[in-house]
Structures are given as C-alpha cells and as structure tokens.
C-alpha cells in the first residue's frame, strides 16, 4: 500500500489552502470594485452543497457497506424538500431583507417578538448540537491524514501537532475571510466562492473514485455486477437493509434540518444575492447531491469485494486507490474530503460565532455595566469565539475518539436540530405561533432528544451505567430511554422522532394558544405570514405627519449609539447612510413618521453587528426618543395593528355585516318609497277634492256675479220703465 510522507501532505495541504486563500482574496477584491463574482445561480447552488460534509463524503460509503440503502435517506430527503424551496426559501430571503436577519437564531429572535431570550436559547441549543458535529469533521480530516501518511486510520499522538496545525490554519482562514472586519451584511463572497470550488472538488473526487472502482479495478458495470454476484455471500454477511421506519425517520430528520442548520441557513439565505437563483438551485442541488451520493454504492461494494475490513468502510474511498497504486487519485480524494470538512467547519464557525456573539455575549455586555467598555471590541470578541469553538470541537474530537458515540454524532446532531422544526414552520405559516409556544416546544423537544437519544449514546460509550437503559431510572421500566412508556416495537431513531414530535409540537401549539402575543410580535407575525405580499405603509394621519422634531438632536444620539460598538469613522459613515436611506439629509425638522423610519434603519444597521434584540434595546436606552415620541409611536403601532390584523375570516365577517346592513338599508328605502307613494296618492285625492270644492266655490261666485249683473239689469229695466210711465201720466 502506498503512503505519503507527512511533510509532503503538509506542504501540499498548505499549498491547497494558499490557493483557496488566493481565490477568496481575489473575489473580495473584485467585490470591493463592485464586481460580485458570487452573484450567479450556479455559484449559489454549489455553495449550498456545504450540506455534504466530510461526514457524508466518507461516511456514505461506510453506511452503504453496512446498512445498505440507509445512506440515501438524508440525500433523498433534501431532494424531495427542494420541491418546495421556491415557496419556503423565498420567504426566508425576504424576511432576511426586511429584518436584516444574519443567522438562524436571528430568524427565531425576530419572528418571536425580537426576544433576546429566544435568541440566546436557540444559540445555546445549537452549540450543544453542533460542536460535536464540527468535531466529527475534524475527526474525518485527522483520520484521512493519518491513513494517507501511515496507512493506519487511527491518528497517533505524534500527529497531534499536525492536527493542531490544521486547526490553526482553519482558524486563520475563518478570521481572515469571515471576521477581518465587522461587516454589516455578514456576507462573505470570498468564502462562498471557496465553498463552491470545494464542492466541485468533492464532486470530481467522488466521481473519480467511483469511476476508478468500476473501470480500473473492474471491467465496467457489467463485469462489476458479475463480480458482485460471485461475491454475494461475502457482501450479504456484512450488508443489511434497515427497516423502512428507520430510513423514513432519518429522512424526516434530514429534510427538516436541511435549511435549519446554521451553515445551510447562512449559505441559502444570508448569502443569497438574488431570489431568482433559487430557481436554478431547485434542480441543480438535487443533481449534485446525486452525483456526490451514487458512487458510494460502487465504492462500498468494491471495498467489500476487495476483502477490506468493513469497519474501515468510511475510508474505502481513500483506501482503495492507496491499495491499488493510484497515488494521484488518493491525493484527489484526500482533498475532496478535506474540502468537504473544511467548508463545513468554516461556514458553521462563521454562523455559530455570529450567533454566540450576538445572543450570548453582547446581551451580557449590555446588561453588566462593568462590561460596557467591551462594546468596542465586538470584532476581537468574535475572533475569540471562533478560537473557542474550534478548540472545543477539537477537545471533543479527542474525547470521543474510538468511543461508540462517534458513529452516532451525525444523526444525534440532526435529531437535535430537528427540535427547531415546529417553531420554524410555525414562524412561517402560523400567525398565532408565539414566543411562549416556541420556547416551550423547543425546550420539551430538546429534553425528549436528550433523554431518548443522547443518554443511550452516553451509556453505550460507558460514560453512564448500563442499567439506565435496561431497567430504566430508579428501576422504572416505563421510563427506559429507548422504550419510553413501554414502546418496544420501534427502532431507537423512530422512537426519538415520535416522542420528540409529540412533545415538541404539543407544547408549541398549547403554549401559543394559551398565551397572547405582544403588539410588536403580532405585527411581525403578520408580516412573516404575508412576507410575499406588499408591505402596508404606516397610516398617514396628521398626528404622525406633524413636522416638529429637531433632526440634529437625533443625529447626535444616533452617532453616540453607533460609537458604542464601532469606531468614530465607521459610526459617522453609518449615520450618513441612515440619513441617506431615509431621505433626511439636509433637513432641519422631521415628522414622527420620518423619525420612526429613521429608527428602523438605525436598528437595522446596528442589528447586523449585535443582533436585532440587542439593537432594539440599545436604541431605546440610547435615548433616541423622548417619552412623548414613544407614546406617539405606541399609538401608531396600535393603528397599524388595526389595519394589518384583519385575517381573511375577519374580512369575510366584515363583508357579511356590511352586506346585511346594505340589505336592511335597501328594505328601509323600499318601505320609505311605498310610504311616499301612499302619501302622494292621498295628497292627489285631497287635491282633487279641494279642486272640486274650489270649482264649486268659483262657480258659485261666478253665478253670484252673473246673478248680480242680472239683478242690476233688471233694476235698470224697472227704472227705465218707471221713467217712461212718469212722462206719460202728467
């Protein structure tokens, strides 16, 4: 078997890392000149393959060799999940844009009422779940190095210095390209390009190893299958398929965690430049996962047929070229594994460091007055956190070396991260899901995970008494961790899935229904559910549009707030940016509405350094608002809640009420019309009567006049006749 001298491997590794440094540096220089080379759908998708770690690069082969099709569960899981990415990922990307979310803990923190407690809780649980997972990557790196240099997969004590050297280089890489300076966006295009290139190396190495087994060790697919048929009994002796329930549980764990793992959230959401890139990722990501996965089948069977110890199945990919004199392929595979582990360690370290700094350290600095002076050292604190994380992972790797728990770490981490799933989907799709529900659900889920999965792993590593598993605590059989409440028909993985889902979802729903959301949480929940819809603006009422606030005073406050965390120059830049973004540059007085917009931008920018909850607290304590202004904003929020909280059901009810009122009005109007018609008719009748009376009266008058005239005529005739008679008689 060929081996390499440690010096050769060390030099080649340093050269490889130098090349990656060069790539990252080149990309960052380009970005500084306004050309973002990572702003491409293919680069975005390749970077998403940070999902395939060193554990899966080597471990897929080991899993296939012993547990048949189990290795496909996490890979098929993410393939199926990508069907729904267009809807889910876009929601996350838009939430990131709107609330400046820079990590997965920030997502929960913002959605559940900008609660620092939620951020701290999520970060703590992630640290518990993921430090062992980072350790697993380090173990994969160390073991492959040991195998390549000594032919023995167990690293010796003399390799400790080399291992620490690899660790130091990783630390340097993370600090250099992740935390060289405090970056508002928390984006790292240089690192993303490196991760994308490392994915390409992983894919080429895996395909080359599969090709080597099929076409170099055997004469093509036909010959390979023929040989498999001949060696059937040897293969059958080591390879068994797990029950479907176990495969399904593994799939569920991996499906749900594929966006929730901090590194995945970082690559898929935080580093996304354009949501249209998701369209490409939907098909390219599953294709790459397939390319990385399917050669494991041929390599595993090739290893078994070659008579290699199945306990070394994880390293078959490296072992086969070494045993068959293919040094170039062995080196390629080594770098494939190194790329897989390194990319995971780098991106996870960046994500976990930001989370730890924002949600565990900054809140303490804010609360304890004697630590207030540390505000200016946020960057240095992050360096220390990176170092602490990597060293803790390294110590853990040394601790579990050769223990049973080692093979369980991957699935243990997946199952732990799964506990965030109900609160995650609730945050996106359930308006009533609230902080209390999330905290209760996640805590209950973690307790279930710890009891049914972590505890048995610790027992099997001989760190706890075996009686805990066989007899249960205090001899109570119903409390046996792997057979809780007497459930014996399920495999341990499915058992954990069942128990944790029931407890987690149950507590989340009950907690959310029992407790009310605060005003701000209600508003954020509404926005998260409707994140794909247009945003409703603030109500334009005279009170909020009154120009009465002196801007200069606010600028001074704003600069003071920023100065607590960044240098003088940086705070001046941030202040200018805030004014530009709110179109307030050059103004003397501003309105309440403009002040609120300014506050949002100040908070948003500060959140990038210290997280949303801490930013909010800092702005409030920084004295940006007077008491009167606070009262006005409170009224504005109430008005907004009134506008935004109209659910479809409420809307339907309102429409129904309006329709009913309209119908009643119509009926009333009809009644009025008929009453008017009646009155008109009566009036007409009375009018006719009056006319008749009038006519009679007029006729009578006319008759009277006629009669008077007749009388007059008759009188004049009588007079005339009298006069005639007088002249005749004298």
């Amino acid at each position: 078997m060929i081996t390499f001298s440690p010096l050769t491997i060390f030099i080649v590794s340093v050269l490889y890392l130098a090349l990656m440094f060069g790539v990252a540096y080149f990309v960052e220089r380009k970005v500084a000149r306004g050309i973002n080379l990572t702003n491409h759908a293919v680069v975005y998708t390749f970077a998403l393959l940070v999902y395939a770690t060193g554990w899966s690069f080597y471990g897929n082969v080991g899993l296939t060799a012993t547990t048949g099709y189990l290795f496909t569960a996490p890979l098929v899981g993410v393939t199926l999940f990508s069907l729904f990415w267009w809807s889910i990922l876009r929601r996350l990307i838009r939430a990131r844009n709107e609330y400046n979310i820079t990590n997965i803990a920030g997502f929960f923190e913002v959605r559940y009422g900008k609660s620092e407690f939620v951020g701290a809780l999520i970060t703590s649980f992630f640290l518990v779940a993921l430090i062992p997972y980072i350790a697993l990557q380090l173990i994969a790196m160390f073991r492959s190095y040991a195998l390549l240099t000594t032919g023995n997969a167990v690293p010796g004590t003399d390799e400790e210095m080399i291992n620490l050297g690899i660790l130091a280089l990783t630390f340097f890489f993370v600090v250099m390209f992740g935390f060289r300076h405090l970056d508002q966006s928390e984006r790292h295009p240089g690192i993303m390009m490196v991760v994308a290139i490392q994915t390409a190396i992983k894919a080429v190495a895996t395909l080359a190893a599969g090709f080597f087994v099929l076409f170099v060790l055997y004469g093509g697919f036909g010959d390979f299958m023929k040989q498999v048929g001949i060696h059937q009994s040897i293969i059958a002796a080591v390879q068994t398929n797990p029950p479907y329930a176990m495969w399904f549980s593994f799939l569920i764990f991996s499906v749900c965690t594929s966006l929730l793992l901090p590194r995945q959230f970082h690559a898929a959401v935080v580093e996304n430049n354009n949501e249209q890139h998701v369209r490409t990722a939907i098909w390219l990501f599953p294709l790459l996962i397939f390319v990385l996965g399917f050669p494991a089948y041929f390599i595993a069977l090739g290893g078994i047929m070659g008579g290699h110890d199945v306990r070394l199945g994880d390293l078959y990919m490296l072992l086969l070229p070494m045993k068959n004199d293919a040094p170039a392929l062995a080196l390629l595979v080594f770098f494939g594994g190194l790329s897989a582990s390194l990319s995971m360690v780098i991106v996870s370290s960046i994500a976990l460091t930001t989370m730890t700094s924002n949600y565990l350290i900054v809140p303490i600095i804010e609360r304890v007055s004697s630590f207030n002076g540390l505000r200016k050292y946020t960057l240095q604190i992050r360096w220390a956190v990176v170092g602490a994380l990597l060293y803790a992972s390294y110590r853990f790797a040394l601790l579990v070396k050769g223990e049973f728990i080692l093979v369980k770490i991957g699935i243990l981490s997946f199952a732990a991260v799964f506990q965030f799933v109900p609160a995650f989907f609730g945050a996106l799709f359930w308006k009533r899901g609230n902080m209390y529900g999330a905290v209760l659900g996640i805590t209950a889920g973690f307790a279930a995970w710890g009891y049914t999965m972590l505890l048995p792993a610790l027992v099997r590593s001989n760190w706890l008494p075996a009686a805990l598993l066989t007899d249960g605590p205090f001899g109570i059989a119903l409390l046996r961790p792997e057979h809780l409440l007497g459930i014996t028909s399920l495999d341990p993985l499915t058992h954990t899935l069942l128990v944790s889902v029931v407890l987690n979802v149950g507590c989340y729903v009950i907690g959310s229904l029992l407790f009310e959301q605060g005003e701000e949480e209600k508003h954020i929940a509404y926005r998260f559910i409707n994140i794909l819809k247009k945003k409703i603006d603030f109500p334009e009422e005279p009170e909020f549009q009154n120009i009465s606030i002196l801007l200069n005073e606010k600028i001074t406050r704003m600069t003071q707030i920023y100065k607590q965390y960044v240098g003088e120059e940086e705070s001046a830049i941030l202040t200018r940016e805030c004014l530009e973004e709110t179109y307030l540059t050059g103004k003397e007085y501003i309105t309440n509405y403009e002040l609120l917009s300014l506050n949002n931008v100040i908070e948003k920018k500060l959140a990038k350094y210290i997280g949303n909850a801490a930013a909010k607290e800092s702005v409030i304590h920084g004295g940006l608002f007077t008491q009167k202004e606070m009262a006005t904003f409170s009224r504005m929020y109430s008005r907004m809640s009134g506008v935004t909280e109209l659910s479809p059901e409420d809307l339907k009810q309102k429409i129904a009420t309006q329709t009913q009122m309209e119908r009643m009005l119509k009926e009333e109007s009809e009644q009025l019309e008929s009453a008017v018609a009646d009155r008109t008719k009566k009036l007409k009748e009375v009018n006719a009567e009056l006319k008749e009376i009038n006519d009679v009266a007029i006729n009578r008058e006319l008759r009277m006049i006629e009669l008077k005239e007749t009388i007059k005529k008759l009188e004049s005739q009588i007079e005339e006749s009298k006069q005639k008679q007088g002249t005749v008689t004298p």
Partner: protein
Amino acid sequence: MDKLLQKSFVQKILSLFRNDAFKWLIVFIALLLFAGVPLTALHEQPVYVSVLYCLFIWAILVIVLALVAYAERETGNGDNRNNDE
C-alpha cells in the same frame, strides 16, 4: 393551429408540474416507492440489488425535479408567484 394546440397542451402539463398538490403527490409516490426497497428481501433479493433499485428511483426523482424546475421557469413568468402576491 396544431402547433398552437400542442403548445397549450405542453403548457397545461407544465402548469400541472408546478402545482403544489402535484408536488405533494410526487413526495407521496417517491416515499411509497422507497418503501419497496426493504420489501425486496421478501422476494429473496440480496441487499445490493435493493440498493441498486433505490438508486434507480432516486435518479428518476432527480429527473422529475428537473422537470418541476423547468415548469416553474417556463410557466411562472408573469405569474404572481414570481413577484409580490
């Protein structure tokens, strides 16, 4: 005319692919098919054959996913799912 009819038929099929209910159907069928992997043991098939069957289903799934992505791209333009709803 034939071409127009053909085009509208293809569009209909593609629209079907991007329907959420159809996506859930794909998930359900895929899980059902994978459930058949350990069942091959009932027919005395060795494990390596069942894993090969599993890889085959997986490959088909990847192709179906590519079709869904294509459908999203082809029939999605101008649709409100691309923009603000």
